[in-house]
């Protein structure tokens, strides 16, 4: 097997995991389902919750750094916070909370087989995420134009590090939701098979939740 065959097989198996042909043909005998559907559904949810716990601990490091340095430099955090754009921050907060609602509706809708509604809600969620990203882009570039960069002082380092890592999660969320949407169009999901949308929704709620903490801690303490 040549290098390119292997590479293309890896890419293909990541892009279309469910269509992946396992080397052990017997494993494929039950198609998509390796185990019974109820177990798979419950397991996927448990697995996702565990993954969300790891995400909280990832951000936990940033929150700990925030707590330590805010206690050490209260003035710096007051001043830094005042320089952030509360209006844009508020708009972004509202957008993310709204997108959490739409993704929740999508999860409910797929369980009732209302495919059109699912598509609409996922579209709105992705667009909300995009608007959030655009706003953040303007916020960042405005800061850069004023000569404020990561490393300018500890507050801005925390601001850029935590919103940056959060932004990365927004992008990942957009990709996840995009893949789900594409599969909805392909007719992969129904009220019998909605686990992927449910756990994708869980991930998006986490992205939202982290922001709900980041927003007051960064924008509103000034």
């Amino acid at each position, binding site marked *: *097997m040549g290098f390119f065959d*292997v590479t293309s*097989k*890896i890419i293909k*198996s*990541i892009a279309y*995991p469910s269509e*992946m*042909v*396992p*080397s*052990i043909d*017997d*494993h494929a*005998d039950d198609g998509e389902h*390796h*185990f019974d559907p109820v*177990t*798979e559904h*419950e*397991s*996927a949810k*448990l*697995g996702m919750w*565990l*993954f969300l*716990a*790891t*995400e909280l*601990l*990832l*951000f*936990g*490091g*940033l929150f*700990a*750094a925030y707590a*330590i*340095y805010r206690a*050490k*430099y209260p003035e*710096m955090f007051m001043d830094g916070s005042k320089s952030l754009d509360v209006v844009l921050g508020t708009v972004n907060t509202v957008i993310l909370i709204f997108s959490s609602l739409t993704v929740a509706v999508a999860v409910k809708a797929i369980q009732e087989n209302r495919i059109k509604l699912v598509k609409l809600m996922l579209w709105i969620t992705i667009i909300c995420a995009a608007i959030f990203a655009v706003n953040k882009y303007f916020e960042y570039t405005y800061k850069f134009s004023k000569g404020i*960069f*990561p*490393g300018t*002082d*500890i507050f801005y*380092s*925390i601001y*850029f*590090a935590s919103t940056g*890592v959060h932004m990365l999660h927004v992008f990942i969320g957009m990709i996840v939701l995009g893949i789900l949407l594409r599969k909805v169009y392909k007719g992969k999901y129904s009220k019998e098979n909605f686990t992927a949308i449910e756990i994708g929704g869980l991930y998006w709620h986490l992205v939202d939740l982290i922001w709900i903490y980041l927003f007051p801690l960064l924008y509103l303490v000034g």
Partner: protein
Amino acid sequence: MSEVNEKNYLENGEGFASWFFTVDHKRIGVMYLWAIAVFFIIAAIASFLVRFEHLTPGQTIVSADTYNVLFTLHGSMMVFLFIVPGVAASFGNFLIPLMIGAKDVIFPKLNLYSFWIYLAGAAIFMIALAGPADTGWTFYTPYSIETGANVILITLGIFVLGFSSILTGINFIVTMHKLRAPGMTWDRLPLFCWAAYATSLLQVLATPVVGITLLLLIGERYFGLGFFDPARGGDPVMFQHFFWFYSHPAVYIMILPAMGIISEIMPVFSRKPIFGYKAIAYASLAIALISFLVWGHHMFVSGQSKLVNIIFSVITYAVAVPTAIKVFNWLWTMHKGSIELSTAMLYSLAFIFLFTIGGLTGLFLGALAADVHLHDTYFVVAHMHYVMIGGTVFGFFAALHFWYPKMWGRMFDEFKAKIAFVLIFIGFNVVFFPQFIMGTLGMPRRYFNYAPEFQSLHQISTYGTWIIGAGFILMLWVLMRPLPGKAPGNPYRSVSLEWSMDSPPGTFNFDEIPTITEPVYNYGTKVEEES
């Protein structure tokens, strides 16, 4: 055998692709085993060079800079590529579904992706060797920010490896919750699974913290964030706090699976039920819990407040309790048992002996006053190697021999394997026991040079590496040349579930999912009558 299990897992498919794209937990476990074996050998060679350098004071074979690179390579590769993923990912993958009566782990594809992510992380790690780090495996700031070495790439590799660790942990936890066979209640769960469960919890809860720490370190080097730089108002000790918040629990990620292995082997070769099943099971969880609360004991001399030091010291002592519970239970399992000194049992006995030395010397270091004297000396090096080699690696070797028939379907030459064991056991003690003495005499660790009065102890230690090295080679040679003929399904007359099928297991493990009706390790009752 039924139709689905016509072929055993080793025969089912040939060639590179049949392994690299498999979702069979057994094959993935075996691939992990090969991968960690390769890194173990590379990292061991680095350590032999480090020891060789110490034959004489000053330069023996390599320069001081190369020496720094060598011990960093040894430490970081052993920790992040061998011992953290090591036992849990290889034997955990192979054994957990067999032990709980399942046909695979719950997320087989995710399992394969975890392995690929592991390889990707390892690849980044290897690329980073182009500008090898010289920071030690702990990447302490401020040096890790200032050095010209390739710190960004190596930490990125470790960050990626962390993903693999997390995903494997999630997979195992959910597998044990959802896929236990009917009748496999939690109090019938083999103790290896309990240990793997506790390990997985640690992997899931601790790894993300080192992830963000290493990301911040990368940001520190790339953007100059300043979190760990006093010139910018940051604090280098904060890096140590963050780092050890992961890396202390990681110590238990390394040792818990080995403890699980010992708990499996003891009853088989003592022909007795394990003593204190529940105590051992809950001790695993207790160790996992307490391990999150002791990270400060790595920093007693870094300027923490005295109160904090005292608290960390007390909690450190508390970890010894569940650990000692396990040791006493293993000893009592052997009491009045019919002990068979197989190779696996010899490694297990050595584990108890060496791990006890490692554990007790850990208490010296957990004591505040003693630690001021012993901190950053060879005493620490000896202590952690007694735990990591005497504990984890001996446990790992015990598993290699014990499950060898199940994994490969062949038997090995017990006599030669025992000779290898003797060499490894003697060599290990010759390498590391003198280091306890050197440490108490004040020989600092990680130093290129040393005072002439330490030379004889350093030389004894270096000679030891040649003995242990010979042992490793002999062990590898024995294991690579199995005896002719097929291994029986259950060569040890074990009552555990993983021995109830053919060796090696069929592709689907069980012809049909078994129903469990008896307690685990039910020796001295039914089995003895049947045999």
